[in-house]
């Protein structure tokens, strides 16, 4: 009974219920939405956001935020695509190393600026959001890298499937989610990220190296944004200095806060974020089916972020109220 209650009260259950209700509602209006084919469409909308969201989750849990991931994605993707363009002899899979490495470097810069000068990460990454985008234009001479330069094997990651007709990149995203789950829940350093976000002032007293952890989460976020960069090239077959990664940060932050990650740090689960990404995917897939113009999308994201904030707040307040009641009883 109690176990059931605690499952029902979990944030993840709430999102799962929202997904089910949403799918049923759309399904009633458009039965086609319930087909396997639509499941595939929804899944194909998610891998990039999923990977970005895993990094962002860790950053938010550590009580920071990374607004630069869209530009990081673009820069890493551009470096990789240009490598393919000018050095077609390089094996395609090395692109992953390059893209992740470049992303890691940019993330490290974010972390270093934040820790070194004790600056709010939101302003730092607002700055690097522009800086990295500008650098993307500069290295590419403001030119798109076209389809013909992206190795076919890389593009095939998005089209060919090991099993069940589900493309490789979806498995990669799931793999990243599982790795993040392992990292966040089963490693000492992962738990230290949660401890740091939960009580930054007390963290050093427990031997947590605050600067090192902060650097690490930003580096991970950058590296995953880098990974999402080469996956962008795989999924869409081109890299554009202006379009690639534009608005990515808003999609990711929306998914992460829907997924129950608290902007006050310390709280968040991979399962919640995965569900948050799925819900966002469902919404994106349902809009064209329902004939809602794409112009509504941005307003929906904004509203979703605010609603998620309000839910987060009411959850927190219920906790405080319960505590007060407990003390009153004592």
């Amino acid at each position, binding site marked *: 009974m109690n176990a059931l209650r605690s499952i029902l009260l979990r944030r993840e259950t709430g999102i799962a219920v929202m997904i089910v209700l949403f799918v049923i509602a759309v399904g009633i209006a458009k039965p086609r939405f319930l087909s396997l084919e639509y499941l595939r469409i929804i899944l194909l909308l998610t891998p990039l956001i999923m990977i970005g969201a895993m990094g962002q989750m860790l950053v938010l849990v550590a009580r920071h935020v990374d607004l630069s991931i869209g530009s990081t994605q673009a820069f890493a993707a551009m470096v990789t695509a240009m490598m393919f363009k000018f050095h077609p002899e390089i094996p395609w899979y090395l692109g992953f190393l390059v893209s992740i490495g470049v992303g890691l470097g940019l993330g490290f810069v974010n972390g270093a600026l934040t820790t070194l000068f004790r600056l709010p990460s939101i302003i730092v990454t607002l700055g690097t959001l522009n800086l990295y985008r500008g650098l993307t234009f500069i290295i590419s001479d403001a030119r798109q890298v076209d389809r*013909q330069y992206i190795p076919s094997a890389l593009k095939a990651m998005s089209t060919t499937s090991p099993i069940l007709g589900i493309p490789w990149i979806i498995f990669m995203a799931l793999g990243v989610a599982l790795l993040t789950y392992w990292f966040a829940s089963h490693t000492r350093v992962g738990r230290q990220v949660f401890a740091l976000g939960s009580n930054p002032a007390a963290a050093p007293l427990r031997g947590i190296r605050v600067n090192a952890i902060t650097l690490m989460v930003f580096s991970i976020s950058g590296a995953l944004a880098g990974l999402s960069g080469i996956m962008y090239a795989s999924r869409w077959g081109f890299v*554009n200095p202006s379009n690639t990664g534009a608005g990515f940060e808003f999609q990711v932050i929306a998914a992460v806060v829907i997924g129950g990650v608290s902007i006050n740090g310390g709280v968040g689960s991979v399962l919640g974020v995965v569900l948050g990404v799925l819900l966002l995917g469902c919404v994106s897939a349902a809009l064209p089916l329902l004939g809602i113009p794409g112009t509504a999308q941005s307003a929906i994201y904004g509203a979703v972020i605010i609603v998620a904030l309000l839910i987060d707040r009411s959850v927190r307040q219920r906790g405080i109220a319960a505590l007060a009641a407990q003390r009153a009883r004592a």
Partner: protein
Amino acid sequence: MLKRHLLAGLAALGLAATFATGALAAHDFKVVYIGKNTGNPYFDSINGGFVDACKQIGCQYEFVAPATAEATSQIPIIEAQIQRGVNVIAIAPNSPDAMNQVLDEARAKGILVLAVNGDLVGNESHRDANILPVDFTKTGPNQVELMGSLIGYKGDIAILSATTEAPDQNTWIAAMKKTLAEDPKYKDMKLVATVYGDDQPEKSTTEMEALLSNYPDLVGVIAPTTVGVAAAAQVVQQRGIADKVHVTGLGLPSEMRDFIKDGTVKAFQLWSPYNEGWLAAYFADGVLNGTIKNEVGTKFDVPNLGSITIGDKNVMNTQAELTTFNADNIDQFNF
């Protein structure tokens, strides 16, 4: 029409012509082309036309573009050009009306203002002339004919467009509908849906997926926008249904080459952006030197393009009909 490789040969002719026409002429005027935004591959090609033409003419040319294609981002650039004292501003406007004031200011300073590859629809009085690649009234019928030829003039088709209010696309779509309805040749073709991908790859892909699943009998999709046609082709390629669903539309050869080569797309159309730049430069040279009168009905010759007529509202086109790209000719084009 797109014989860039012949240019070298024609260069001498062009030079000779200009020397012959005016001993007084000053050909070293300054021209700047303001694109919609940087990183847009389409404008690389227009830019190429300007560069080559200015090499021939002797004018000084520069290309600038804002980072984003929002309505106001070109304004500071125009202001800067006025201050720099350029003689010609050619622009692909991001807004049909937000730049009226600043363009008027430029014209008041004696700068020739040309809209290139897009017009100030409804605000034509704020520019001197407009250069469009083709007569846009022919785009719709051309596209319908190409689609028909691919599907044997029979079956359900759909349109995947840019944004709901994109003016050019809407003109073409209206013409397509009219053609389908009025020409008996197309009586067996049925337009079942028009959807909008907002010129974003993600959104266009989702819309294309929705189309295929909503209309299982679909045999063709026309996407009169470069982003849309690439996205639609990619969906068809992924699903391996190229023999069942034919994708065509307006695309860039550089973006579509792979799809043509692997047979996903049999043919698509476009014009030559390169020639737009070429024509704009020659037109500007002629107007500034008094050899071309910027009036409706004026005819003048441009190297490589032949005779050009200034049409209604001072609009001129580089070519009459759309160019069709297919496996036979795609390798001749590198834009």
